[in-house]
């Protein structure tokens, strides 16, 4: 069926990147980082591999208290609209304000799915609806989630939301449904198009640059090099989940 249809612009772009990347590689120029990135911008037909592990660095020293540009961008990107019931409304990313109990130092940061390497939500899901892509993005298959909420019991970050009512105004790239669980997808639809998650772009647009997105496996890339340079930690490090989201300043 798809053969009779013209390729989408995204597919065409990906094919171009693939071919261009391969062509440049053939020229045997310096096998640098950029080449590797271009060569793996795969088409939809190619499986996701563990060559990448996508992640985020949250630099809390740059995150402004009171700014919620990342939250608004996420809500817009995924069509999350509140029902005026904060206890049951979905929140994929939230701003948390922290105050050190001893020193009084204040920190503000965004909290979302930490895309763990050993995700407890995936371990406990009875049907396998909660799953981890090879590139480390933790997702929910909305077609086989039965809405048992065991993943929400297991998540150490309260990163998941259950859809408590009928929805309207959904985005085609981010399908949602009543009675199932959802959480931050790391904007997988954008990542697959070689774009950064909406929250990261919004934070940069707001002039803060507190969020850095990238490939943890790419030692020369922006994320891995920042993590090698800065003192960072994962949340709930006692659980040894090896999260893909790292924080500095907490």
């Amino acid at each position, binding site marked *: 069926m798809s053969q009779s249809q013209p390729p989408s612009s995204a597919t065409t772009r990906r094919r171009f990147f693939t071919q261009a990347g391969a062509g440049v590689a053939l020229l045997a120029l310096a096998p640098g980082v950029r080449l590797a990135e271009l060569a793996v911008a795969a088409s939809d037909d190619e499986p996701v591999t563990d060559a990448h592990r996508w992640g985020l660095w949250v630099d809390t020293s740059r995150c402004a208290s009171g700014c919620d540009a990342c939250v608004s961008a996420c809500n817009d990107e995924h069509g999350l609209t509140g*029902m005026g*019931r*904060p*206890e*049951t*409304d*979905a*929140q994929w990313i*939230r*701003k*948390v*304000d*922290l*105050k*050190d*109990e*001893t020193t009084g130092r204040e*920190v503000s940061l965004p*909290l979302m799915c930490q895309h763990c390497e050993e995700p*407890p939500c*995936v*371990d*406990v*899901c*009875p*049907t*396998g*609806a909660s799953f981890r892509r090879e590139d480390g993005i933790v997702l929910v298959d909305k077609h*086989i*989630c*039965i*809405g*048992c*909420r*065991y993943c*929400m*019991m*297991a*998540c*150490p*970050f*309260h990163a*998941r*939301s*259950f*859809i*408590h*009512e*009928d929805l309207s105004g959904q985005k085609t790239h981010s399908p949602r449904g*009543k*009675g*199932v*669980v959802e959480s931050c997808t790391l904007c997988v639809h954008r990542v697959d198009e070689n774009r950064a998650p909406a929250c990261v772009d919004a934070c940069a647009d707001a002039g803060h640059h507190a969020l850095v997105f990238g490939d943890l496996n790419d030692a020369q890339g922006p994320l891995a090099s920042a993590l090698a340079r800065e003192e960072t930690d994962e*949340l*709930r490090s006692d*659980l040894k989940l090896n999260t893909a989201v790292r924080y500095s300043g*907490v």
Partner: protein
Amino acid sequence: MTSSVTFQILRPSSGFWLTAGIAAALAILGLAAAHHMEVEGHYVTGMNNRVVWGLPHVFAVFLIVSASGALNAASISSVFGQSLYKPLSRISGLLAMALLVGGLTVLVLDLGRPDRLIIAMTYYNFESIFAWNIFLYTGFLIVVAVYLWMMFEPRMNRFTRPAGTVSFIWRLVLTTGTGSIFGFLVAREAFDSAVLAPMFIAMSLSFGTAVTLLAMMLGSRLGQAPVNHEILARLRTLLAYFVIAVAFFVAIDHLTRLYAAGHTGVERFLLVEGGIYPWLFWVGQGLLGTVIPVILLLTPRFAGVSQTVFASLLVLLGAFAQLYVLIIGGQAFPMDIFPGYIEKSTYYDGVVAGYAPSLPELVLGLGGIGLAALIALVAVRVLPFLPQGSVKQPAG
């Protein structure tokens, strides 16, 4: 085994129809509540994104844990050779199945997508203790059904003991699995404990024996047969010891956390400052569900039928209090995502989560009890589950 025990089909009486009518009404109302929750969405319940398992889970876990414990009488009779309990063996197996079906029905109807039950039966993640429980529950129904068949069919009676042994082992594993649903939740301080598995086994022995006592006394009333006081006396003592066993595990669970400095916050919440939860713990489970029934059950002066009914009901009241504190209190206490910091967010980080059970949840839970009772009542009406009259001392 001796053949001195005979069983009867219950003859309908006005009491039977009244009891069955109440059970059926509860079951139908429960279905209506579930339908309402599914059509409107879970926002009509008290559950939210912080307390994701509410009153339906308290009822469901109560019924499932009681189910495995209800098999006690049959196990004691056919596995441990105490044939005094043989008159109760069939009703014991029936109760086990009926309670489990009631509990599973509540659990399924509270799913966000109960229409996807077939997915739960066809897609398995074997790393999930929940998936294993699906096998344990359905397997339990099959194993106990076979066990009952061995009891009912004279030609198969010789296989009663092996079938009973398999059922006994299965119910131990099943309750271990149910306890592990909570015990494996490493992220939550109130759960994350290996002691939950044996604690759930003790709970099943306690809750199941209380239900068996109540069913035995209801059965003798509906069947107009005298209560077997020898079994009654034994079950009373057993129930008292089981209640004490539960108290022991609960004490160990809390003491372990109290000892660790990092966990005193959750203990202070559950035992002192947590509003409804300390009340339910000390008064509900402690006083009404443990101290008073144990005194009643171990004092010969209170050995009458009505006092035993009262004591059994108190044990079940304590059971609900315990499960409410465990399941809902355990979720209400905030997770310590940022140790050493005071947290504030739009997602209720760092604060105790609110939960007020709603009417649909309560009705759904009661519907599960109604369904279990209805199944048991229909079964005793069509098959000889109930013992006939008093029983002579069997030869063993």
